[in-house]
């Protein structure tokens, strides 16, 4: 129990530190939201008079004159109540509403892509590592090449080939806008059709890391004494691969997987840009360019919670999966 208590208190401190940083960082940005909103308005053909500036400052800039510690205290209080504030760039919408409309898209797209990439990568890595030095090893450089190519470029090439030239997939968006979002077959089919290409690019770009990690762990595990023992016992190679080598080699990948699940929430800003996909990454980008502190804090909060939560889960699960950590505790 002591082990869990220690872990939990560590995470409480980490959470507080993250929340404080989350408060501080957006405020270090130059510029203020009113100026940026006006600049946007003017770019959109609006006329910006001194009166307009005054009106918008009144509308949005009510609380920025408070001293920092008052803002900090209010921030913590509101957070405790689950109130993330009002978004400036989507005024008067609540930050939580803005985030919640985008979050499902990101979680499903990036989540599914991450799961597929991890499963495929680990599976291929185990097979490649089982027979090091054969032609299968060529999978390692070819997948790491895909991972090394700048992601936006890979994505643009795929868009160009598969969507523009071949026309197999829609170019942009998250669903056919003629349909009404909801749990009906037509809409879900459309969402899958639109999400396939973005997911494919994420899988292609991240599979190399999983494969390489698993393959190397596999190679070093194969030289362990217990594998030799298993072979000497006369177990079938298939059984050794499955239950002895892979099972031990996969441990670091499991930890890595849980952590990458935490990052699913932060989504992929670039994916969403390239595909005009509705999601949290685009919101974050917009919040940063508009000095929308509240929205930025809200998005960061969700990311922080997801990453910390995933880490906590790994820490706790590890105690169960790996007997060695349990023994130490």
């Amino acid at each position, binding site marked *: 129990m002591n082990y869990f208590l220690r872990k939990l208190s560590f995470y409480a401190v980490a959470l507080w530190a993250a929340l404080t940083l989350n408060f501080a960082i957006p405020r270090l940005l130059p510029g203020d939201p009113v100026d940026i909103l006006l600049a946007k308005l003017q770019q959109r053909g609006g006329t910006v008079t*001194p009166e307009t500036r005054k009106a918008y400052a009144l509308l949005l800039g009510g609380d920025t004159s408070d001293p920092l510690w008052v803002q900090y205290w209010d921030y913590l209080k509101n957070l405790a109540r689950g109130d993330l504030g009002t978004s400036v760039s989507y005024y*008067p919408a609540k930050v939580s509403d803005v985030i919640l409309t985008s979050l499902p898209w990101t979680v499903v797209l990036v989540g599914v892509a991450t799961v597929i990439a991890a499963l495929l990568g680990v599976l291929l890595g185990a097979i490649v590592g089982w027979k090091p030095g054969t032609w299968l090893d060529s999978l390692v450089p070819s997948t790491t090449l895909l991972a090394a190519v700048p992601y936006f470029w890979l994505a643009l090439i795929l868009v160009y080939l598969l969507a523009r030239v071949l026309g197999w997939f829609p170019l*942009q968006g998250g669903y056919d806008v003629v349909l009404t979002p909801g749990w009906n077959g037509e809409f879900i089919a459309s969402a899958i059709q639109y999400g396939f290409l973005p997911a494919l690019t994420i899988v292609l770009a991240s599979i190399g890391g999983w494969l390489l990690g698993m393959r190397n762990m596999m190679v070093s595990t194969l030289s362990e004494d217990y594998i030799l023992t298993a072979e000497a016992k006369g177990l079938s190679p298939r059984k050794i691969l499955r239950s002895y080598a892979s099972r031990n080699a996969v441990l670091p990948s499991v930890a890595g997987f849980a952590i990458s699940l935490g990052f699913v929430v932060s989504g992929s800003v670039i994916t969403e840009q390239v595909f005009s996909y509705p999601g949290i990454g685009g919101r974050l980008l917009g919040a940063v360019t508009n000095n929308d502190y509240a929205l930025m804090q809200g998005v960061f909060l969700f990311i922080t919670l997801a990453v910390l939560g995933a880490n906590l889960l790994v820490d706790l699960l590890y105690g169960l999966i790996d007997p060695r950590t349990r023994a130490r505790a």
Partner: protein
Amino acid sequence: MSPKNGPRPRAAAALAGAAALGLALSACSGGSADSSSGDALVVYTGQAGDYQINFNPFSPTKIGALGTIYETLFFYNKAEVSEPAPLLATEQAWNEDGTVLSVVLRDGVEWSDGEAFTADDVVFTFDMLKGQPAINASGFDGTVEAQDDTHLTFTFEEPTFVKGPDLMGNTPIVPEHLWKDVNPVEDVMEEPVGTGAYLLKEFKPQAYTLESNPEYWGGEPEIKEVRYLSLSGNQAGADAIAAGTIDWQTGPIPDIQNTNRNFPNYDAYTQWQNQMVLATCSSAELGCEGPQTDPAVRHALYYAIDREQLNSLAFMDTANDMSPAFTLTPSQDQYVSAAVEEPIAPTTAQPDTAADLLEAAGWAKGDDGIYAKDGEKLTLTVEVVTGWTDYITAIDTMASQAKAAGIELTAAQSSWNEWTEKKGSGNFQLAIDSLWQGPAPDPYYLYNYFYDSSSGAEVGGSAGNNYARYENPAVDEAVAALATMPLDDAAGRQSHFDAIQTEIVEDMPYVPIMTGGTTSIWNTAEYTGWPSDEDLYAFPAIWSAYDAAEIFKRLEPKG
């Protein structure tokens, strides 16, 4: 052991299934990207990221509905010097001294929920704005009274001619019977009710759709549906044009001059409104530092630019001539003072003129070919926003041109926020930017916004539009005088325009570059009636909401 066996086959099957499904679906749609657009006119306003519902016409974060759903009293066509076109009102007249504006409203107009539109709605709208400073963007401070259902008067304490276009053409009228019960600042109006030619059909974060109003007073428009799409930015917009999924966007696409050849269904049309400038922190008295505080340097820069070369290298030949008097050319040429010697900025570089100007002001050329004075080298930093690629190319081009004239220019890229901050606080030497127009096609507004000292500030303070910190009593006086004269008093106003133009050409706090083009790419295969040189009835930009609404009403589907 057995649990370990589980995931593999299942995952593989799921993946194969997803792949098959994806392929099957795409096979069904046959790759025709047009299938999703249906019969609607699909437009892209440059909205980056999803829409958040907000159809409150007074909210700075509104996503639409101006002009299409909520109408103003008149429509001002900023593309041409012209009479305002009547919408909800049919006539407007000022009294002699500009304190009373009488307006006659259109008879028989109905709100889209069936209630009658009357003068009370107009009175309500303006009273509401006056009572809510946070949304009173035009600073309305007069009183409105209705004489009967179609006649009303606006009364002001001071001559207010120049505010007229803001009130008549820039203030959407809302229904009293619905708005009296809502918070006009915070309500997002999920079900907007207006008098306009369009109604809100449906809203989704990725797109919202308007449908034509069958009861519209001007007759139901030919375009039955307009869909506003959200994409991730200009690049995505260009992709959508290439794929044929949108019908109208305003923004650059590659090889824009040959749009019609590359995409036979589309054509590009350009109008010029944004006067691109190198804004200077001009006033040494207010704390500006650097060589640009010397007017001779600003003039030398003006003559050092080879605008023809600049246009082809940085602006894909979409920019146009510019007048140092800051009247739009050619649409406002009539306002240019006879005293302005060069009504158009020179199109080629004049390094000799630049050299003469600098030497007369005491600058001397150093060994490295760059001028210097009192040990200070003529080196200037131009602030630009990272990612504004056309402006960055423009600075690079101008830097090499200026070098030939003995001036060193360097670009400093920063984020938009930082750039805005630098301009506001005055911590810059030069900033590349563009000056915008007012609510009516009249140069008064630009002079008032950018040259009047009231919107300037000391360095360190926060400046408004006049971030160049230009301060000239003669200009302030002329701007103030113009505010008391009717906009149609051409003869009387010209002497004040002359005074302003003489001063600003001489001081040149904003160094004219060129007039930037606003290019619309639109579908000419399926729709006719777009604005053209022959009939420029509105400014052709989809993000200019009132203009776009006029265009929707004029368009007709082909065939």
